[in-house]
C-alpha cells in the first residue's frame, strides 16, 4: 500500500526563539531550520511499515518556500521514495494546508496518510484532523502504536487519561505522538542516493487551491518572564518558605 507523509520545515527545536522588536513575529533570519520533530516520527513510521512489507511506496509532501526541499530530501534519505513540493512563499494556515494535502490525496490515493500531531512553531495541532474531515477519512491522532491489519488500521492513542485504541477503515489519517518510535539518522550513502530520487514541484494553483488566510496575526510578544527566585539552604528552609512566605502549603 502507498503511504503519504506530510513534513513541515520549522525552527530547530533547540533554538531559543526570539520575538522581533517590532512585534510582527519571531525572528527567523539566520536561525537553524529543521524537520518538525513530530514529522520525523511520521517519516520513521512509514519507513518501518515499508521495512515490514506493509507499505510499498512512501511519498513525502511538504508545503512552503523553496527551502522546504531540504526537508523533503531528508525524508528521502531516511527512506521515502519520492517527494512532492507544493511551493509557496505565503503563510499557509492549517485549513489551507489540509486543502492542499487533500488535493494530493486525491491524486495519489494513499491508503495511509501520516502527519505529526503538531508543529512546534504554531503549535496548532489541526492539520491532520482537518485533512481527515475533508477527505472523509477516519483519524488516529496522537498515535503511540500503529498496526495495519488488512483493510483496517488499529491506532493506539495517547489521551489525557492514558491510552485508547481505535480501529479505522483504510484509507485513514494518523498523527504521531512522541512515543510512536525513535527516528533514525540518515546515513551518508543514503543522503547521496536521496539526491537522485524524484521530487515534483507544483504550486497551490496547480492543485486548484487558493491561499486565503482566515486568521491574521495582529502582534507577537515575548511572554511575561519569570524572575528567578532564591536558593534555599536546606529542606527545612524550603518548607518554612512554602508555609510562611509563599503560603501555598
Amino acid at each position: 500500500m502507498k503511504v503519504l507523509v506530510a513534513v513541515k520545515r520549522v525552527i530547530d527545536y533547540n533554538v531559543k526563539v526570539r520575538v522581533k522588536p517590532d512585534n510582527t513575529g519571531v525572528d527567523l533570519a539566520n536561525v537553524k531550520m529543521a524537520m518538525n520533530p513530530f514529522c520525523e516520527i511520521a517519516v520513521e513510521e512509514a519507513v518501518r511499515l515499508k521495512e515490514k512489507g506493509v507499505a510499498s511506496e512512501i511519498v513525502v509532501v511538504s508545503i512552503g518556500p523553496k527551502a522546504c526541499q531540504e526537508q523533503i530530501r531528508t525524508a528521502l534519505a531516511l527512506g521515502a521514495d519520492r517527494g512532492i513540493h507544493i511551493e509557496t512563499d505565503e503563510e499557509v494556515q492549517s485549513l489551507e494546508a489540509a486543502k492542499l494535502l487533500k488535493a494530493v490525496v486525491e491524486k495519489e490515493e494513499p491508503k495511509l496518510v501520516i502527519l505529526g500531531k503538531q508543529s512546534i512553531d504554531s503549535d496548532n495541532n489541526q492539520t491532520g484532523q482537518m485533512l481527515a474531515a475533508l477527505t472523509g477519512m477516519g483519524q488516529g491522532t496522537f498515535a503511540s502504536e500503529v498496526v495495519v491489519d488488512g483493510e483496517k488500521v488499529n491506532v493506539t492513542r495517547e489521551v489525557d487519561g492514558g491510552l485508547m485504541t481505535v480501529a479505522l477503515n483504510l484509507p485513514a489519517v494518523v498523527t504521531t505522538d512522541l512515543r510512536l518510535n525513535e527516528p533514525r539518522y540518515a546515513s551518508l550513502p543514503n543522503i547521496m542516493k536521496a539526491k537522485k530520487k524524484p521530487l515534483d514541484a507544483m504550486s497551490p494553483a496547480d492543485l486548484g487551491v487558493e491561499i486565503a488566510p482566515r486568521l491574521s496575526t495582529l502582534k507577537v510578544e515575548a511572554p511575561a518572564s519569570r524572575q528567578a527566585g532564591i536558593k534555599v539552604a536546606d529542606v527545612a528552609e524550603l518548607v518554612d518558605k512554602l508555609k510562611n512566605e509563599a503560603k501555598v502549603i
Partner: protein
Amino acid sequence: MSILVIAEHDNSSLKQATLNVVAAAKAIGGDIDVLVAGENVGAIAEAAAKAEGVNKVLVADNAAYGHFLAENLGELVAEVGKGYSHILTSAGTTGKDFMPRVAALLDVAQVSDIIRVESADTFVRPIYAGNAIATVKASDSIKVITVRPTGFDPVAAEGGSASVEQLDVVKDAGLSSFVGEEKAKSDRPDLASAGVVISGGRGMQNGDNFKMLEQVADLMGAAVGASRAAVDAGFVPNDMQVGQTGKIVAPQLYVAVGISGAIQHLAGMSDSKVIVAINKDEEAPIFQVADYGLVADLFEAIPQFEEELKKVL
C-alpha cells in the same frame, strides 16, 4: 452573539475544564449553551445546567458518542454548532481530536489553545512552546476555538439553572470504532486541575523511585507529573507528561524534582504560581524559573521533605 460550549467529561462526571471554557465564553459575551455528547450522560447534563452563566444544555446521548470518536463528534458538533457565532471546547486530547474536524466541515479556521479573549474575534494564544504570545484575529463568521483551561478562572459549578434539552441527532460516520483503553487509575487529584503538582524527571532513575514522590503528593493532596524523559524511559505512563506536547498545568505550587527545565517542559508549567526546583546541578535551567531552588541530591532531599511536611501539615 451565541456561543456553544462542548462539555468535557468522561461519561461519569463533568470535567472542571468545562467550567474554565464557560468562563472563556463569558469573556466573549453572549448566550452560552453547553452541548453534552456521550453515553448515559443525564447526570452530567444536570451538572452542566448548574454551572454559572449557562443558558441551555443540549444533550446528545447515544452509543455513537460513548467513546468520543472524533469522526462522530465532529459531524454532530458541526451540525449543532452551525447556528452559533462561536464554538468552544477545552484543549484536552478529546477537544484537540474532534474540534479541527468541526472547523474543516464548516470550512472555517480554528484558533487553538487560547489563553485570553481580547474581543469577540480576537484571541491570545501561545506559540513556539510559549516562547511567543500571539494575538490573532479570526475573520470567519463562525469562530471555532479550543481553550487552554489554565488561562481562565472557572465559573462557579453551582448556582445556575439552565434548561436541559434532548437532541435526537445521531451521527455515526462508520469510519472508526473503539477497541480498548488503558486508563491509569489514581486516587490523586487530576493533574490538569490539581492545586499542587509534584513532578519527577530523568533524575528519578526508575519508576519505583516515583513512590517517593507519591508519598509526598499524598501528604499534600497533590497530583504527580513527569517530564518527557521520565515517560520515554518508561518510569511512568504518558498521561503524566507535563509540557509543550503533554499537559499544561498551572497549580498554586509546582515542585520539579530531577528535571532540568528544557523549554518544552517549561511550556507546560511556567504559569504555576510558585515553582520549587530540587536538582543536584546548580546550573540546571529550571532554577531560572524557580521561586525556591534547592541544590541537593533528590534521594536525600525528598525523604527529608516528607518528614518536614509531616511536621507542618
